[in-house]
C-alpha cells in the first residue's frame, strides 16, 4: 500500500495564478481535497482544461495535464477516456467554454462517456475582459452588456439533464461539502457534472456588487435548484460500446477474391454505361458485370451516379474494362450504352444524342429515344425481367449486351454471380442471365 498522498497540487511552477478572492482557487482546492479522499494514482488521472482562467489550473496538479482549445476540453477528455478506459478523466471548464462548446456538453451527457465535468461558472469571461457568457444572469452588467444582460441565462445542469446526463449537481464554491460532491461525481462510472457558481473578483463582482449569499439568490430568482439534480445511472459509453460492438459484432466478412481465369475479346479500354432507375439494382448488376470482367482477366472500374434521395430518380453506372491498366476513368465516348428505364433515359438523353456511330445502344423497346448516330438494338428488357424478377433488369440487360458484344464469355458473368452473391439472389440472377442472353439470341435470329 502506498503512503497516503496529502495533496495532488504542486507548487513546482509556483502558486495558483488566480486573482485575489477568485472562486477558481476555492474550486481547485476542493478538487484537490476530493482527490485526497479518493487517493487515485496520479498517473491514472488526467485533468483536462480549455481556454478561460480555470484553464490555468491543470498544470498545477501532479496528474497528467491536458490543456486544449476553447470549449473543446470535453472532446479531448472523451478521446482519452475511450482510448484508455482505466483513466480518471476530469474536465475543468468555464461558463464561456460551455457556451462555445455547448454541443459537446449535450453530447457527452447523451452518450454517457465516463468523464467528470466541473464547470467553474462565474457568469462572465474573465480571461478576455469580462464579456457576458451563456450563464450571465438577466440584467447582469458585463463589458458587453453595459446596460444589463437581455439574454436568458442558460441552465447548464438542466441542458445536460435534458440530454440524458446520468449525474448532475449544482452548487456554489462556498458549499462546505463541495469536496465530497466532487468525489461523488468522480466515483460515477458514467458522465457526471458539477455546475459550481462562484465569484470573478476582477470583473463580475465589482460591476454587479455580488456577495456570497447572492449566488443562491440568483438561483432562486432564475427558478433553479441546487444539489444533486440527476442521479440515474446507466451503462457507461465505452464499456457499453465494447460490450455491444467488440463482442457481438460479427467478424468482418471475408471478401470473395476473384481469379482471372477466362479469356476475353477486349482489345482496348472499353466504356460501358448502364442507365436505369433507383430500385432496379443497377449498381449491383454493374458491379457483378465488372467483376465478371475481372474473372475474364480484365481490369475494371465502376462509377455510380444517383440522386442524394437514393430511392427515386435515375441510377446510372459507368463501367470500364481494359486488358491494360486503366488510367483515365471517365467515359467520354461510350462503346456500349444500355438504357433500361425512362429515368435512365431522362438522365442520359443528352448523352445519347451525342453517341458516335461506333457505339451500340441497347434500349428498352418501349422508350422514346432521341435521334442518335449509335447503332440501336431495341429489346424488351422490362417484359423479360418481369418474367424472372423485376429487380433483375440490370442483369437481363447486361447479359444481352454481353451476348451480343462477345466482350467475354457468359460463363464469367455466371461465375461472378455465383461467387459473389448469396444463393437465393444468385439463383434469380442466373435465371436473369439466361433470359437476357436468350433474348439477344432471339433478336439476332430476327
Amino acid at each position: 500500500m502506498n503512503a497516503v498522498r496529502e495533496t495532488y497540487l504542486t507548487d513546482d511552477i509556483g502558486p495558483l495564478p488566480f486573482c485575489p478572492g477568485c472562486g477558481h482557487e476555492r474550486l481547485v482546492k476542493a478538487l484537490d481535497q476530493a482527490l485526497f479522499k479518493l487517493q487515485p494514482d496520479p498517473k491514472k488521472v488526467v485533468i483536462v482544461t480549455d481556454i478561460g482562467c480555470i484553464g490555468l489550473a491543470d498544470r498545477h496538479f501532479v496528474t497528467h495535464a491536458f490543456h486544449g482549445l476553447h470549449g473543446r476540453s470535453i472532446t479531448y477528455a472523451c478521446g482519452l477516456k475511450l482510448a484508455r478506459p482505466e483513466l480518471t478523466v476530469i474536465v475543468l471548464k468555464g461558463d464561456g467554454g460551455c457556451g462555445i462548446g455547448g454541443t459537446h456538453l449535450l453530447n457527452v451527457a447523451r452518450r454517457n462517456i465516463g468523464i467528470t465535468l466541473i464547470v467553474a461558472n462565474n457568469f462572465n469571461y474573465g480571461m478576455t475582459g469580462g464579456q457576458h457568457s451563456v450563464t450571465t444572469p438577466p440584467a447582469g452588467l458585463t463589458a458587453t452588456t453595459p446596460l444589463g444582460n437581455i439574454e436568458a441565462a442558460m441552465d447548464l445542469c438542466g441542458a445536460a439533464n435534458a440530454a440524458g446526463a446520468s449525474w448532475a449537481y449544482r452548487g456554489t464554491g462556498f458549499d462546505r461539502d463541495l469536496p465530497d460532491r466532487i468525489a461523488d461525481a468522480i466515483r460515477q462510472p458514467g458522465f457526471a457534472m458539477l455546475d459550481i457558481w462562484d465569484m470573478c473578483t476582477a470583473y463580475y463582482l465589482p460591476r454587479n456588487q455580488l456577495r456570497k449569499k447572492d449566488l443562491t439568490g440568483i438561483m432562486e430568482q432564475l427558478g433553479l435548484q441546487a444539489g444533486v439534480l440527476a442521479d440515474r445511472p446507466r451503462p457507461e459509453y465505452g464499456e457499453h460500446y465494447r460490450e455491444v460492438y467488440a463482442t457481438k459484432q460479427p467478424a468482418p466478412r471475408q471478401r470473395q477474391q476473384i481469379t482471372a481465369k477466362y479469356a476475353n475479346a477486349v482489345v482496348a479500354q472499353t466504356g460501358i454505361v448502364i442507365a436505369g432507375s433507383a430500385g432496379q439494382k443497377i449498381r449491383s448488376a454493374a458491379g457483378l458485370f465488372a467483376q465478371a470482367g475481372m474473372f475474364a482477366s480484365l481490369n475494371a472500374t465502376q462509377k455510380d451516379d444517383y440522386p442524394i434521395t437514393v430511392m427515386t430518380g435515375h441510377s446510372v453506372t459507368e463501367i470500364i474494362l481494359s486488358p491494360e491498366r486503366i488510367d483515365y476513368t471517365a467515359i467520354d465516348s461510350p462503346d456500349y450504352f444500355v438504357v433500361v428505364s425512362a429515368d435512365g433515359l431522362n438522365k442520359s438523353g443528352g448523352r445519347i444524342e451525342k453517341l458516335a456511330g461506333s457505339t451500340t445502344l441497347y434500349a428498352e423497346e418501349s422508350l422514346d429515344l432521341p435521334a442518335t448516330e449509335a447503332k440501336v438494338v431495341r429489346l424488351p428488357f422490362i417484359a423479360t425481367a418481369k418474367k424472372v424478377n423485376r429487380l433483375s433488369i440490370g442483369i437481363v440487360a447486361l447479359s444481352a449486351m454481353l451476348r451480343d458484344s462477345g466482350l467475354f464469355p457468359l460463363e464469367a458473368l455466371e461465375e461472378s454471380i455465383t461467387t459473389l452473391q448469396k444463393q437465393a439472389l444468385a439463383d434469380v440472377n442466373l435465371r436473369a442471365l439466361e433470359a437476357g442472353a436468350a433474348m439477344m439470341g432471339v433478336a439476332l435470329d430476327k
Partner: protein
Amino acid sequence: MGLEFIEGNEAIARGAMKANCNFFAGYPITPSSSVLQYMQGMLPHSGGIAIQAEDEIASMGFCIGAAMAGSKVLTATSGPGISLYSENIGLAIAGETPMVIVNVQRQGPATGSATKGAEGDIQFTRWCTSGGLPVIVLSPATVEEAYELTYRAFNLSEQYRVPVFLLTNKEIGVTRESVDLEAIALPSLVERTRVAADEEYLPHYFEAPSDVPAFSDFGGEHIARFTTSTHDKAAYLTSSPAVIQEMIDHYAAKVDAAADELALVKEDFQDGADILIISYGITSRSATVAVHAARAQGVKVSALSLQTLYPVPRTAMTSSMHGMKKIIVPEMNMGQYILEVERLAPADAELIGVNKMDTTLISPAEILERGGLQ
C-alpha cells in the same frame, strides 16, 4: 494473387487497419462517409473504437485525445469538414500529435457539389491552420495508392509526430477498381518512439531542432502534459522569445529537414524531352494517357507525378525541371500547385496550367490540346 473490386475509401480503411490503427472518429460527409462506415465495420472487432462524433470539431478532439493516450488514429472528412478541423489541426501540430487526416475532396466552395470530384483543397491543406507551420500531405492517384499511402501516412505520423494528410478525391474515394492489395509492397511498420519508464521525460524534448521527441502516453509511465499555448520543452507556458522561436524552429525543421526523405514521386522521363507534365492525384492518370498519346505522335515529353505534395519535393522537382522549355501542370482547380512549380521552375520555362473546376475529370485530350502537345 487475390483480386478484389473495391473503392478508394475502403482501401483507405484497409490501409489504416494494416497500419494497426485502433481509433477512428469522424462525422458523415459525402464523399468520405464510407470511410467511417468501413472503420465501424472493422475496428471494434479488433478491439478498437470507431465513433461518429457530434461534429467535425469533436471528431478531431476525440482523435487528438485518443492519440495522446497512445492510440493510432484516423479521421476522414471532405473539404467543408477540414474547415471545421482547422483549429484542432493547429493543436495537433503544437502538441506533436501523430494522426492521419483524410480529405476526400469534393467540388467547392462551400457545400459545392457534394457528390462531385475536385482538387480544390491543395493550398488549403498546406495552410489549413493558424501559424502556417509545415504539414505532410500525400495524394494517391489510384485505389491501390490510397491503400499504400494511408499505410505510409501512419508511418510518417508516428515517425515525425505530426498530423499527416491524405488528400484524395471523390473520383478515387467512391470509384471501384480492380486491385490486388496483397501484392502491394509496403515498408515495415513504424511506431512512435516511447520513453522508457526509467528514463527522464520531457514532452517536447529535442537537441537538434529536427529531432522528434520521444513520446509518453497519457496514462503511461510518465506524467504527460499537452498544451495549446506557447510552451517550452516541458510543455509549460513560456513567454520567452528565444524559447518560443526554438520551438517554432523545431516544428518547422522536423518536416522541412525530411523533405527529401518524404518525397514520393513517380518519374517517367524521355531522353531529349524539353516538355514536362507535373501532376498529382487522379489527374496524373490523365497525364499518363496524354504522355503516351503525345509520344505516339512523336512529341517528346516527360512526366513527373507527385504522391507527396508537401513538403514540396523540391529536389525531385528541380532536377526534373532542369532544361525544360515547357512545363504543363493540369489540376482540377484554378491553379494551385502550379504556384509551387513556379517557385522552382527554370526562369525561361513556359508554364501552362490546364485548369478546370466543372466537376469532371481533366481529360487526356484537354491536356494535349491546352498544353500544346498536338
